């Protein structure tokens, strides 16, 4: 599988070294060296001799997008876009963004690139990589410890646990996020993402990570943005290949030559400079260095694809002379400017975003306020009238209005051919390409008192004002703030109306009155 043993052992060494660090804190000193060497031997035997080990994970290519674009381009089932397009996209994306173990960042505008403002190197180091240790100095792999089994190593929402969850975990690659303080169409602020990590998403399988340290949360937020930017770029590039002519490529190299086959130096000069984010301690440990060239040449940096193993062995020197550096430079710069810059600008724009100040009226927070009753009535009328909440959330608010909608993550491919979601055969090939079986998105049952975007008045306000991106919940462009607040009050009270409350729970056995 194109994976060499050397890496395997190196990984073992890393494990060993960091454990030795932990150990020195907790273990006494007697007989220590012997014990370590026994451990070291045992690990090596287990890792190396026992069965070998699994290659480090790679970012999965967006097979669903490829499939979708192939169908959009009018190809028949079974046909796909030409392989060299896939190679080009994979090579470029992995050249720019590295691998799960060794992330990197493309510097579109030189070394002081704005992209680096989005994610700090320290953050990426903490979040990326294999789970190693909680030890302060070498802590890494936060994402794979806490997130990847649902959201996937690639951030595609397709980790091993994902299929069992309802709703499905978020696929970051669309760059859409539901719960944020920014208007529809813009990315969330970092504070939004962090708040979401702290609070979780009630009513879903997304738990709260409040107990993580502040810098750990920041690191995860950075990494989510990194995955999202990477995923968006990949999708844009895939879409771009669809419109290319027969003999045209994203990177115009001679046939049978791949972008990643170019010497790293050449890519450095004619391509987009890339900043490698390699964990410093790891580079001390082995002969790796933070320069891009070596990182790029290590087998880790190759994206997973079916023929990766076979082609990577081709000698590079023979082919280097046959390409035209200027064309390549032009193509790569074009890609960076045409596809990457808009993404990064969109995200960078949000760094400066300041949410509009909203005053929370007193009658929202104070249940006993005199005005509350009248506002409740206004909210009630809006619900059934102007705001038309009733259409989806239903007359009783249990979310039984319109239940046959899908969210954007599903519609993204469901709408391409107008697939009937009720027909498993129609979407089977999309599911094979990595889509989750479509599940209708249900309007929230407002009588449970569980609000995914948070239940503070301001959260409810934002959800009504800006809607929920990626879902049928629209932004309320025509309502005034006052009206939105009235709706908030109405929604707040709904779970506490008598019809919402089931018979009061049985008294516990240890709740007997005290003698």
């Amino acid at each position: 599988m194109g994976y060499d043993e050397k890496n395997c052992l190196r990984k073992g060494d890393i494990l060993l070294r960091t454990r030795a660090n932990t150990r020195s804190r907790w273990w006494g000193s007697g007989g220590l060296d012997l014990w370590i060497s026994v451990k070291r031997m045992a690990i090596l035997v287990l890792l190396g001799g026992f069965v070998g080990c699994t290659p480090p994970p790679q970012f999965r290519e967006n097979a669903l997008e490829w499939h979708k674009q192939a169908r959009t381009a009018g190809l028949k089932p079974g046909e796909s876009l030409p392989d060299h397009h896939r190679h080009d996209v994979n090579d470029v994306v992995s050249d720019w963004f590295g691998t799960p173990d060794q992330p990197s960042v493309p510097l579109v505008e030189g070394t002081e690139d704005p992209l680096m403002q989005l994610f700090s190197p320290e953050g990426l180091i903490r979040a990326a990589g294999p789970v190693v240790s909680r030890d302060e100095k070498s802590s890494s792999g936060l994402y794979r410890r806490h997130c990847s089994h649902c959201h996937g190593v690639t951030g595609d929402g397709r980790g091993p646990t994902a299929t069992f969850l309802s709703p499905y975990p978020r696929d970051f690659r669309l760059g859409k996020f539901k719960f944020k303080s920014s208007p529809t169409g813009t990315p969330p602020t970092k504070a939004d993402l962090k708040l979401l990590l702290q609070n979780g998403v009630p009513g879903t399988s997304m738990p709260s990570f409040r107990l993580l340290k502040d810098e750990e949360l920041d690191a995860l937020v950075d990494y989510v943005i990194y995955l999202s930017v990477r995923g968006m770029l990949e999708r844009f590039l895939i879409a771009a290949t669809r419109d290319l002519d027969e003999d045209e490529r994203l990177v115009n190299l001679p046939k049978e030559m791949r972008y990643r086959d170019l010497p790293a130096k050449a890519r450095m000069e004619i391509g987009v400079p890339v900043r490698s984010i390699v964990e410093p301690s790891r580079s001390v440990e082995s002969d790796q260095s933070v320069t891009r060239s070596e990182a790029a040449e290590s087998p880790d940096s190759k994206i997973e694809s079916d023929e990766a193993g076979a082609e990577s062995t081709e000698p590079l020197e023979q082919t280097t002379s046959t390409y035209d550096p200027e064309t390549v430079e032009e193509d790569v710069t074009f890609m960076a400017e045409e596809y990457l810059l808009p993404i990064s600008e969109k995200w960078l724009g949000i760094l400066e975003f300041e949410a509009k100040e909203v005053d929370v009226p007193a009658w929202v927070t104070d249940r006993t306020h005199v005005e509350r009753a009248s506002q409740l009535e206004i909210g009630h009328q809006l619900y059934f009238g102007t705001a038309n909440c009733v259409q989806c959330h239903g007359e009783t608010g249990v979310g039984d209005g319109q239940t046959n909608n899908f969210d954007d993550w599903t519609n993204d491919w469901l709408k391409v051919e107008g697939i009937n979601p009720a027909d498993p055969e129609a979407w089977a090939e999309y599911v094979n390409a990595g889509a989750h079986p479509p599940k209708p998105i249900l309007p929230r049952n407002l009588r449970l008192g569980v609000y995914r975007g948070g239940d503070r008045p301001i959260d409810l306000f934002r959800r009504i004002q800006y809607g929920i991106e990626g879902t049928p919940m629209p932004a309320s462009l025509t309502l005034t703030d006052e009206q939105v607040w009235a709706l908030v009050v109405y929604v707040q009270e709904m779970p506490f109306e008598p019809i919402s409350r089931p018979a009061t729970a049985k008294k516990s056995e240890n709740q007997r009155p005290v003698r």
Partner: protein
Amino acid sequence: MIGIQFLISSLIWFLIGGLMAAAMRWQLAWPWSDMPILGSWLFEGEGGQISPEYYTMLVTMHGSVMVFFVVIPILAGAFGNYLIPLMIGADDMAFPKLNMLSYWFMWPAFVCMMLSFAAPGFGPAAGWTSYPPLAVLEEAAPGSGLAQTLWLGGLTCVGISSMMGSINYITTIVQMRAPGMTFFRLPMTIWAMLITAILQAFALPVLTAAVLMQIADRLLGTCFFIPEGLMVADALPKSGGGQALLWQHLFWFYSHPAVYIMLLPAMGMASDILSSMSRKPLFGYRPMVYSMLSIAGLGFIVWGHHMFVSGMQPLVGAAFMLTTILIALPSGIKTFNWLATLWGGRLQLTTGMLFCLGFIAMFVIGGLSGVLMAVAAVTIFLHDTYYIVAHFHYVLFGGTSLIVIGSIYHWYPKMFGRMMSETLGKFHFFTTFVLINCVFFPMHFLGAQGLPRRYADFTHTDSFVHLQPINEFITYSAFALVGVQVVFILNFFGSMLFGRRAGNNPWRANTLEWVAPSPPPHGNFLAPLEVHRGPYEYSVPGRAQDYWMQTDSELSNG
């Protein structure tokens, strides 16, 4: 014979369960690292990092396999089947066909369990106790879909198998004893098997009913165990009206007696081996029988101690605490009697005997930590921590499994007509005994720190990260423990071919099975038997031989 079939299939499952434990230990020592074999098989895209629901599945299946496929069948199915007719002097079980059915009903269960590994979620993941609503609602856990249904189906088949077995054992023991074999001349093994069979016959229907209720909850939409107003993922609301605690009551009404089903036969076999190998009559035969009876009786009214903090009425908990604490008494009496049996004997330190001695030591530890847990107030702290894990592994692994292995060494000559290698056997005992303690003793300390069971990873907690070196130590020991069982496997199969031939009575023991040829032919005995005395007449003064077989006439003097 059916007994041997049970033995071999249980040992295979023992291996599978052990390997699962090894996988769990890997995850606990090096959380989320690349797991050998399993990681590259199933989680290659994740770099060999298993998923948390896979860990819960391992926990669940390790427990289920060990309890339902290993300990219960190997004691009742294998040794019960094998020893009962031989020890009471019968030519076969009372219902041979029922007997065969009881074995072949295990196979649907085996198939169900195997299939559940292939079901979504790689297997049930609600714990071997399958507490609802987690186990009942498909949306609640990845393994609670088809896999859980298969698990329940498998459990039903195990139940049917055990039920048929226990009816057969009771009938055989009551009806088919050789002439002169009165109840108080029965070896302890047979007493234990009889009491176990009665326990099973009374407790199993409750479990079967509970399992069928859970199946109905899952497939027919009943809500026996589902209260109203649940919000599980996006699941549609259920009508509810059930009570989640009901399952716990029903389950433990079976599963607590099952603890004794998993222990009493081992105690019986230990008594027989100890007495014959110390060449001394069993001390206090009748107190031993009575204590076993009282364990069985009390065993039915202590199930609540699994539920001290479950939300059950605390007053009931207090009552259960009193009965529970009393059940420690008969076990203690048995231990003292064993020690008195050894005292003043002439101990033959065969491998089987060593395993029995090891069993006593481990059982004392496991039993005493049980006293701690019987104290309800302390259980508030210890419930569902590694202290519990240490406790039941000391009883079930350090206790029962050591006896099972010891009994295999002891009765192997009878089963296969050849002796097992004593050298390999003693090496196996030494390593197993030491490693069991290396694995399970440190768990007491983990438990004293409040380390919770069934956590896939506690290195991300502040309170427990300092326990990680201990976890690694346990993991290395556990790997070694699984590893040294290779010695046993080699010995077991190697001795079939190369073992020294055993005579009818290689241990010079008294009980009836040693009258029969090794291995016993169809019909077991060559001639009709008559029993003249109890099973433990060793070193009777005035006799040249230090044993006096139950069939020997009064006059014979060796």
